[in-house]
């Protein structure tokens, strides 16, 4: 039996991160005593082993060994990029995905659960990972999956879905069975509603399509959130201008709220967490007021299309040109006359000459100097 003292970790006890599976303190102490160069060499060794992986052996075991080593080497947790824990975990999950033998391998399922628990910062992200697992049959025969997912559903107030999930687990006879039975018993005490079997189907299906009635899910959710905020504050919120997001690796514009493409592939955490991503807040549910429905056509750009003109009375007519003239009784007069047409620089034209010029019957240079007329052709008092 290994023995070690807590003392070497005394200075780090506030920063060390707790792990679901725990860690060997003896190994942590040994790694803390190692020089950075030695740690680098150990890491390279793991990387070279990963580079020569084949599916004949047990690639998951190699990955898990590497992950355990990182956890022991970096007790502050794997959230820092330098630790590489997130990347290695995701590499492992993706590498082994689709391998039938790992689908219900407890080690693999537990790694998924740990990934959801440790790295998924918000509830929407965590939920997507659980749903991804469900849809791909990962952990479908492992009680730990149902246990963790149901706990999360319960914490989110989804008691009905939680109950159905546990019933699904019971129907599938996942082991250990008594864990599921116990959870069902605990839930039965907290809920008395009869489950009609539709809640969970709806829960999973709603997380799937990016559009609802041809509207993008994130737009609907955003509108709903804004309406909620308005009702709370009583003031109109103006949306801030958007920040450019380079979506070079994602050409699927309808896929912004889900971390996957067709639920067969999970994008990496860093891709999911790119800036300015519209995160869904909660689930769209029955009875939620989403406002007027715009069709998808309204959201697409109309650039390049000619718009149909709409008839109105003033079409083709120019508005009158007013000139305001001071009057002797200190009241200004607004004259409906364009003096710029009458007085062309130093020239003065009569109405007949202007008409003749406009019809091309009189050249502009033909007019010779005349005395400037003082009053306008037709003074009209509009208002004072």
């Amino acid at each position, binding site marked *: 039996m290994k*023995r070690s003292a807590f003392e070497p970790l005394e200075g780090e*006890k506030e920063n060390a991160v707790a792990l679901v599976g*725990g860690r*060997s303190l003896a190994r942590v102490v040994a790694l803390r005593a190692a020089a950075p160069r030695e740690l680098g060499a150990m890491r390279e060794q793991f990387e070279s082993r990963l580079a020569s992986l084949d599916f004949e052996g047990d690639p998951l075991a190699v990955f898990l060994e590497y992950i355990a080593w990182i956890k022991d080497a970096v007790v502050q947790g794997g959230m820092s990029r330098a630790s590489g824990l997130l990347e290695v975990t995701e590499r492992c999950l993706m590498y082994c995905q689709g391998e039938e033998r790992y689908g219900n391998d407890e080690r693999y399922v537990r790694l998924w659960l740990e990934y959801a628990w440790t790295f998924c910062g918000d509830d929407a992200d965590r939920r997507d990972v659980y749903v991804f697992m469900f849809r791909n049959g990962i952990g479908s025969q492992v009680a730990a999956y149902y246990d963790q997912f149901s706990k999360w559903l319960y914490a989110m107030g989804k008691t009905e879905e939680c109950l159905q999930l546990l019933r699904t687990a019971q129907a599938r006879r996942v082991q250990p069975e008594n864990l599921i039975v116990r959870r069902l018993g605990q839930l039965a005490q907290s809920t008395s509603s009869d489950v009609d079997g539709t809640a969970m189907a709806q829960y999973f299906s709603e997380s799937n399509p990016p559009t609802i009635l041809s509207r993008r899910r994130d737009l609907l959710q955003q509108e709903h959130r804004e309406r909620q905020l308005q009702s709370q504050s009583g003031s109109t919120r103006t949306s801030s201008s958007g920040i450019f997001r380079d979506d070079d690796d994602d050409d699927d514009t309808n896929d912004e709220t889900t971390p996957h493409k067709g639920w067969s592939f999970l994008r990496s955490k860093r891709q999911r967490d790119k800036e300015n991503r519209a995160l869904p807040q909660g689930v769209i549910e029955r009875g939620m007021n989403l406002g007027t429905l715009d069709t998808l056509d309204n959201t697409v750009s109309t650039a390049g299309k000619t718009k149909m003109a709409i008839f109105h009375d003033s079409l083709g007519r120019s508005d009158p040109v007013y000139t305001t003239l001071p009057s002797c009784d200190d009241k200004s007069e607004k004259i409906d006359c364009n003096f710029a047409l009458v007085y062309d620089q130093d020239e003065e034209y009569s109405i007949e000459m202007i008409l003749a010029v406009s019809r091309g019957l009189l050249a502009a240079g033909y007019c010779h100097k005349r005395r400037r007329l003082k009053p306008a052709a037709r003074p009209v008092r509009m208002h004072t």
Partner: protein
Amino acid sequence: MEGSIALKGSTRLITEFFEYSISTILYQRGVYPEEDFSKVKKYDITLMKTVDDELKTYIRKILIQVHNWVLGGKCHKLVICIIDKDDGSVTERWAFDIVRLAARTEADGQEGAVSTSEQSVEETRKQIRALIRQITASVTFLPELSNEGNYTFNVLAYTDAYTNVPMEWGDSDSKEIEGGEVVQFKNFSTNDHKVSAEVSYRF
């Protein structure tokens, strides 16, 4: 010397430490639900103490007996085992060694007696505080107890072979964890005793 601890005071301090450390362990390991505990200020830190009457009575009953044994120098180890109800396996084993220091003056065991040692009550409390902090920080290496709400605990007292044992207490094996790992924590001492703590676990 003012503030120093006599045997009875030392024993009382140790028993009190056991009471708080048992509560802390049961709380932070999730053996009992959170609502069964309330915050108390002790040793200048905030600790969790059980408010469940049944559990309180059970712990008190154990500790009254342990107090008598320690006072009489009959008990040299107290062990708290966290047991999985499903299969009865020991998940964690918290052990507290009690070492009786060299024989004290003839006033030992008499109420109000004072010791000539330099160890003050304040110094002992400081050591206890440091130890409880390490116990609290043990979550950094102990695995999460996944089978939440399905654990119980046993208390084992290591006594001399000829000690009178009440009927409520029965013989037991040591409930060691095979293939586990042991982590040694800080210790604390009074004028008459030295108490050290360790935890065995499997990950």
